């Protein structure tokens, strides 16, 4: 079955180019020129991944991301025109999993999309179940349980958690995670990792402000408490 991508972008030319590139890559593409139309499509026929330009006429892309995140773990990639504005930070905080900056090379965006569809956990993490304290990971079904209760996580969140748990308390740098999970070649943007960890904590920690499971190691990165 073809994976489906929803492209939310008001610029017709970019939408066309994205559609053709994605179709060349074997995706099923639906398009929306604004957030309102995107919401209709999301309700009727939810896609596997969403690409959102943050600057949309009418409802802002950020609001769309927040709204989708309330009910869905679907991977979201945001498109921004500015790295130096708060767009990136706010977009990641709103729940985006990755971002690209205009002008982007279509191949780069395709790679980001494919990352979101990675199927398997890294081969070294073979065990059926990964555990760490109250957290249980089921690599075969990409499920996360906390105290036996399922926790809704996105694919990327699952991979980050599985990397950290497989490291058995070893510190993993942001750079390492960006390479392993997101597939960034050269140094990527560490803020992506920070925001994802922030979101993961809200799901698995008792008190998000005082994490007991997913710990920050200042100046180095992150590790799991063992």
């Amino acid at each position, binding site marked *: 079955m073809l994976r489906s991508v929803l492209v939310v972008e008001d*610029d017709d*030319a*970019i939408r*066309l*180019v*994205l559609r*053709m*590139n994605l179709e*060349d890559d074997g995706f099923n593409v639906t398009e929306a020129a604004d957030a309102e139309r995107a919401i209709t499509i999301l309700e009727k026929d939810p896609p596997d991944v969403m690409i959102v330009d943050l600057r949309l006429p009418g409802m802002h892309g950020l609001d769309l991301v927040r709204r989708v995140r309330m009910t869905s773990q679907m991977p979201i990639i945001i498109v921004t*025109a*500015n*790295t*130096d504005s708060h767009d*990136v930070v706010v977009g990641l905080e709103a729940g985006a999993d990755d971002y690209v*900056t*205009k*002008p*982007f*090379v*279509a*191949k780069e965006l395709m790679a980001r999309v494919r990352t979101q569809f990675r199927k398997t956990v890294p081969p070294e993490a073979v065990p059926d179940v990964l555990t760490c304290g109250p957290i249980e990971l089921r690599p075969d079904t990409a499920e996360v349980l906390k105290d036996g209760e399922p926790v809704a996580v996105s694919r990327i969140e699952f991979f980050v958690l599985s990397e950290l748990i497989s490291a058995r308390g070893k510190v993993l*740098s*942001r*750079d390492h995670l960006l390479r392993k999970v997101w597939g960034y*070649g*050269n*140094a*990527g*943007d*560490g*803020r992506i990792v920070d925001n994802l960890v922030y979101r993961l904590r809200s799901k698995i920690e008792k008190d998000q402000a005082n994490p007991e499971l997913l710990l*920050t190691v*200042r*100046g*180095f*990165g992150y590790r799991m408490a063992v």
Partner: protein
Amino acid sequence: MLGSPRLRTRVAVSFAVLALCISAVLSIASYQFARSYLMRARESVAITRALLDAQAASYAIHTLGEAPVKAIEALPLVGGIRVSQHLYSVDGTDWIGTQTPVPASAIPPALISAAAGGGAKQRFDYEGLPYLAVAVVVDGATYAEVFSYYELDTTLKRGAWLILAIILFATVLGGLLGLYFVNYLLRPVRELASGARRLANGELGARVQLTGDPDLDPIADTFNSVADALESRLAREQRFSANVSHELRSPVTSVLGTAELLETRSSQLPAREAGLVTVLAQQVRRLAQVLLDLLEISRINPDQPPQWESVNVKQLCIDSAVNRGFDAGIVHGDDVTVRTDSRRVERVVGNLMENARTHAGGVVRVLVLGEIGAVQVIVDDAGPGVPEELRERIFEPFHRGQGSVSRQGAGLGLAIALEQVLNIGGNIHVTGSPEGGARFVAEFPTHEGEL
């Protein structure tokens, strides 16, 4: 402090010199006056005393018929003035006397001859001490008395020391007063200077307060309006470049995407058109890269605050080299792990390597050197080296080497490397490599402190 210590010194020294002159003239004049007054008073007392003593002795000798030795010894030694001795002589040479700390021979002969007319006085020194001798002729005999000046001299000396101390004190006080005065005068100027410094450091809201002084306010006012103009101009330019960047990004993205789609379909196109599409895609990629590079260096504020984390610089250089199509074997040096911003270090190293490839025939070596609190990354290229006079200019945007082997690149790579290394508190300079090529040395400090 304000960069004008010379002015402060000048004013302080002038005040000190003025105080020195005034206090010296006044003190020395009053000292001289006091000194001569005291001396004269002392002399007149001495003369009176000598006359009275001489008359008393003469009376005892001539009227009462006492022996001169007895008469002289009987003279009183009391009184405010210490008398060293009394002497008596008939012919002015053979002296009869008592208490002789000063021998008769020490009395100046000129005094005796001068006394022949009735009386005379003379100051003289004996064994380093000052004395006054008074000689009086009464009834054909010469009486002489020697008075010590010792006490008066000591008093005057003490006075002189005191006056010297006063002069010194006044001089120092004058200097301090000058410093205070110049500080007071310069306070508004200092405020102006600190405002200018804050403005220069990028604090665009820096303004100076008007003091109400008609001489200084116009300057402060001008400064403020210059700062206003600068601030609004910069804000305008920031808005402008943000708009330009936004308006350019979208069309470039779609043109780039279109060109690349055409490129992937070029096998379906006639050969001529396929060639054109290749050129188009190449040029659009270049345009997109120039746009990105330009945005990166034209930003007034860095796109994001540095992200400090522990980075193995050598490993980062190796990864960067491999990712950019260089051989991992070109990277040498220390295996150092420091706290820095890996993305920026990669931009610096990567751009230096790309620069070597594009403009100087390739990278000879990348050398990582760990130092105390800092790291040096050295990139040597295979080119002819950079002449001394161009070593600053090559870091300017759009500068391309004269003997550049290639027309590739917009000449922004080094400008970006410099921009990014400055963002993490470092710097870049260029020298010569041992092989005669250019050696780019990027140095950046290890970031200490909190994450």
